[in-house]
């Protein structure tokens, strides 16, 4: 694992993120926030690995399991609620 490469990715992702969001109209700020909040639930990947790679019943496994539950709530709830909100945004149909 090349550590410098990880930082490289981090910095590029930061600039990409800044570019992507800068132009979002304010009416979409709430869905943007809850949608990006769901993405931050990507920790779920780390939680899966932590739960699965530690031996059953060890502290590491229990911590991983808790992380997994929380991250799953974050992911599933975040995406569903964002969808629910966006579904309500309608144009005038007259």
């Amino acid at each position, binding site marked *: *694992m090349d550590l410098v490469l990880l930082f490289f*990715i*981090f910095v590029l*992702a930061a*600039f*990409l*993120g800044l570019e*992507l*969001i800068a132009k*979002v*109209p*304010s*009416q*979409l*700020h*709430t869905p*943007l*926030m*809850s*949608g*990006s*909040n*769901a*993405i*931050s*639930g*990507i*920790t*779920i*990947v780390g*939680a*899966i*690995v*932590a739960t699965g*790679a*530690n031996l059953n019943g060890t502290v*590491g496994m229990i*911590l*991983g399991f808790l*992380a*997994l539950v*929380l991250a*799953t*709530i*974050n*992911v*599933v*709830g*975040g*995406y*569903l*609620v*964002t969808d*629910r*909100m*966006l579904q*309500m*945004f*309608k*144009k005038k149909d007259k």
Partner: protein
Amino acid sequence: MEFDNVINLVYVIAATLFVFGIKMLGSAETARRGNLISGAGMLIAIVITLLDQGILDFKWIIAGLVVGTLIGGIAARLVKMTSMPELVALFNGFGGLASLLVAWAEFEKIKDFGWGAYSAEMGAPGYFSSIVIYLAMLIGGITFTGSLYAYGKLSGRVSGQAKVFAGQKALNALVFIAILAIGVLFTWTGDLALGDTLFLVGIALALLFGVMAVMPIGGGDMPVVISLLNSFSGLAASAAGFVIGNNVLIVAGCLVGASGLILTAIMCKAMNRTLGNVLFSGFGATSQSEGDGDDREPKAISVQDAYYVLEAASSVVFIPGYGMAVAQAQHVVKELGELLEENGADVNFAIHPVAGRMPGHMNVLLAEADVPYDQLVEMDNINPIMPTVDVAVVIGANDVVNPAATDDETSPIYGMPIIEAHKAKTVFILKRGQGKGFSGLVNKLFVLDNSRMIYGDAKATISELVNELKG
């Protein structure tokens, strides 16, 4: 090794889908599809991770996924749109805590393996692992308790007021320095027993700091806090990505961190305050003086009279604020808007960027009430036409329409961009009582010659107006 490459390739695809998803969230036409695409990215990232050969036991993974899906799914179904800020705060907190726990679990692994074997497996020096583990724990911990406290303030479970006390800043600084010092020691020591103690103390301090940081921030500044915590939850995930050396966590977390940061900056700009001022000043905790001795009294108007004015108006602008959310008045407001349109008036809704308790809060409420989004006008677009508007109806908004922000240099909110309701020919202000706004200021708008107060519950008032119009 071969299969690791496949996993990493799939992670690249997932990251690409996140990028597209976020981009599409930027336009109302494509937003819903964007959210689905980003969700698809998440799904394939999860599925490919499950195929990881390092996983020994699936029982608990499946249990965790099922429990989390049930809770998250039910919460997303049941939440009221007015409570969206609370839910987002809560989800932010969960994400933060998950990142903390992932870092902690990794540290447990180090305790099992010993530093030597762990470093060899990770291909990273021990100091790097300990720094990023500590960072992920720290950011995650602050996000968790900060979000929970923000949730408490938003839902009214704790007082939404800013809490300040003597020496608060010094105490916060002290805790923060302690957190840093313990982090340095934690990185420094190779001794796992000492490291374990330091780590646990670090967790306790991070959790404490999250609460202390949100304490001096009042309810009206919540849009900034939620945006910042949103950013933090992303950064925590990104830090967790460094911990386990996983690119998709780093990229996705960083994207969220950047987006939260931009929203934070937008919110601060909309209040003409710096982030430092929002976070540390305890704004709204102290009640300000009554201003410059303007002793004109606000003039009230009856619903009946208000109806005659509205009935004759050819253009009406509604200016909603947090009070509309509290009164759950969005549906009747929409009905009133429709009736006025049928009556031949031009109806718009003017939305201030920080109206409500989270960015875009008012837009979501009005969208829920089926107000088409092209009727929702941003501040910069409504102000130029304000002088041509016959009636501006302020519903539960206060500071965002206070003209003192434009003409009174002594006002604490001077310089904050406002919706210039006072320029409309007539202004109706729906208000529960004669209280002050979040800033504790007397609103100059209320005493202007063209302003009329309609006291009472906003929902009841508007329902009466609706009945009159239908009448």
